[in-house]
């Protein structure tokens, strides 16, 4: 029956399926036209095979960042004093380090949460621009936490309030971005922009009427800071981070199918709506928890997955854990720099990540244009 196919004279007809269904555009729309992730052949070979060196590298970076984070700051410690120091100098060094430790570990957890949320959202939405900060999730979480604080609720409620704010913001942004039953990329980014503007306005309004300690707390949520770290806060954040990580790892293989397209995942047997909801909730939980304890810290969720992907490839089973560890390392390092350069004064770490994140992001855009 196919013997005569070779004689067919019909030219190929590239065709758009136009009027009416509009569905053909749906998933393609989620693909960002300007920001295509580079995929040169050499990098394409980096699949699971490169996961182990990538993981080792990330762990090494994190160990370095933690070590530096304990030593550097307003008071510089020497590694000798800290590890083998005897007498007053050794004791003093260990005391300072033990005061710094909660801050370093809080930075690690917050960085890991944000990077995980960004990685999962990017795969889910098939969009390398997805990030809890740019999509307005962080802003919603900050408003939730700030309102709870202004209402005088206990600090232990703030993760729940931030989570509620993050989920509410995600739902609103998704509703704004929906067109013809599908999430549209341009609309998604615009909706994130609108949400961020709105949340900034709310935070500023509350800030302007707040007084004393409340105003300071508001500032903390707006700028992002790890200065209020305590061992209790580290312990309170850890279960959220662990829960988010476990849920996302459970969905990692499904996220691989989403990264090729939502329709792709559906056609291969994934219950798309349920998976989407769970991954969205897990990302919101991670974002909410991070914001509740550290305020709005941008660009970690955008840059870390990108960097990790260039090392281990896009297999989410490897990318999620490597991103988590690399995100932890990045935020520990960023916080160390932001409290060391102008010591005893401090830069808000959110301002610092934005200061390095924005140019890197711009460079990525230009390189991919």
């Amino acid at each position: 029956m196919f013997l005569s196919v070779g004689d067919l004279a019909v030219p190929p007809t590239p065709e758009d399926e136009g009027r009416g269904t509009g569905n053909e555009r749906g998933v393609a729309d989620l693909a960002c036209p300007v920001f295509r992730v580079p995929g040169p052949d050499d990098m394409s070979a980096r699949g699971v095979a490169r996961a182990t060196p990538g993981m080792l590298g990330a762990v090494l970076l994190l160990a370095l960042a933690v070590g530096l984070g304990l030593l550097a700051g307003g008071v510089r410690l020497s590694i000798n004093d800290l590890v083998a120091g005897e007498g007053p100098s050794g004791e003093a060094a260990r005391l300072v380090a033990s005061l710094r430790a909660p801050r370093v570990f809080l930075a690690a957890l917050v960085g890991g949460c944000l990077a995980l949320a960004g990685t999962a959202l990017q795969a889910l939405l098939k969009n390398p621009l997805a990030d809890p900060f740019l999509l307005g999730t962080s802003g919603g979480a900050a408003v939730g936490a700030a309102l709870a604080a202004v209402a005088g609720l206990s600090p232990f409620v703030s993760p729940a309030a931030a989570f509620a704010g993050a989920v509410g913001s995600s739902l609103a942004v998704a509703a704004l971005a929906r067109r013809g039953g599908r999430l549209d990329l341009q609309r998604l980014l615009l909706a994130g922009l609108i949400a961020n503007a709105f949340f900034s306005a709310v935070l500023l309004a509350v800030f302007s009427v707040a007084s004393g300690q409340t105003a300071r707390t508001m500032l903390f949520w707006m700028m992002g800071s790890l200065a209020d770290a305590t061992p209790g806060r580290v312990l309170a954040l850890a279960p959220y981070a662990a829960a988010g990580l476990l849920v996302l790892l459970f969905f990692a293989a499904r996220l691989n199918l989403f990264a090729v397209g939502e329709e792709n995942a559906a056609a291969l047997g994934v219950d798309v709506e349920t998976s989407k909801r769970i991954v969205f909730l897990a990302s919101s939980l991670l974002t909410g928890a991070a914001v509740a304890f550290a305020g709005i810290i941008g660009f970690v969720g955008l840059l870390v997955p990108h960097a990790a992907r260039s090392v281990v490839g896009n297999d989410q089973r490897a990318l999620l854990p490597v991103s988590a560890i690399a995100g932890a390392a990045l935020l520990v390092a960023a916080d160390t720099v932001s409290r060391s350069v102008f010591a005893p004064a401090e830069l808000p770490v959110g301002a610092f990540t934005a200061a390095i994140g924005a140019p890197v992001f711009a460079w990525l855009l230009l390189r991919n244009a």
Partner: protein
Amino acid sequence: MAAPAERVSGRVEARGLRASYGTTRALEGLDAWIGRGELVALLGENGSGKSTFLKAIARIVLPDGGELFLDGKPLSTFTRRESARRIAYLPQSLDLVFPIRCIDLVLQGRAPHARGFSADSSADRDHAFEAMRACDVDALAERDAAALSGGEKRRVFLARALAQEAEIWLLDEPTSGLDPRHRLEFLELLGRAHAGRGTTVLLVTHEIDLAAEIANRVILLRAGRAVASGPPAETLTPDRLRETFGVESRIVTDLEGRRRIVPYAPSR
């Protein structure tokens, strides 16, 4: 449209199928069936519901009325994973944003067979490599699929459908955008899979001559309904084409005695 006896033999069957996107109706009570081992071409103008029909069978689009049957049982009674093991879908747009090795893309075809969708056991890899050899893309295994040409990419996706071991293939305009050589290579592969494995194929195309050449049967769609179905020679008449596509066409016989359909003007 079809006699009840034929309906029972239908491997995939739609009865009164309705589907929409938001407020746009795409299928308005479609009745159609595809028999075991058939190669059926789905023809119709843009927006007539061809792609939506494929997506409904692939469970990408949820129908909002009517019913789909797989081997006589309602498709909704199969788990998504069960039906994904039996039905492979090749989308029209193969737009990849993230880098992915071709072998990993082909391995995704094994996902419905694997626990937790994590398919990379050595048996899965053997399946994937065998499928890639069959589609002559094994040399591309380590390459980034996002960087391939359109023809290569389609063959990789076809290899994935092979690796999926599905008995039914849904192909959405599989030859669109291919140059003549890649188009012919693709059709050769498709022919081998169809003839060699007895795969049931439902393909959407705008190439009337292609449908006439390779299909056992064609189904014509208009405004979300099937308006005709039958062997190409009997079904693709100038009157039907005017009704379906709004074009005037004539049938010519080429030098080798084959019947060709030449649309030459839009109907007034």
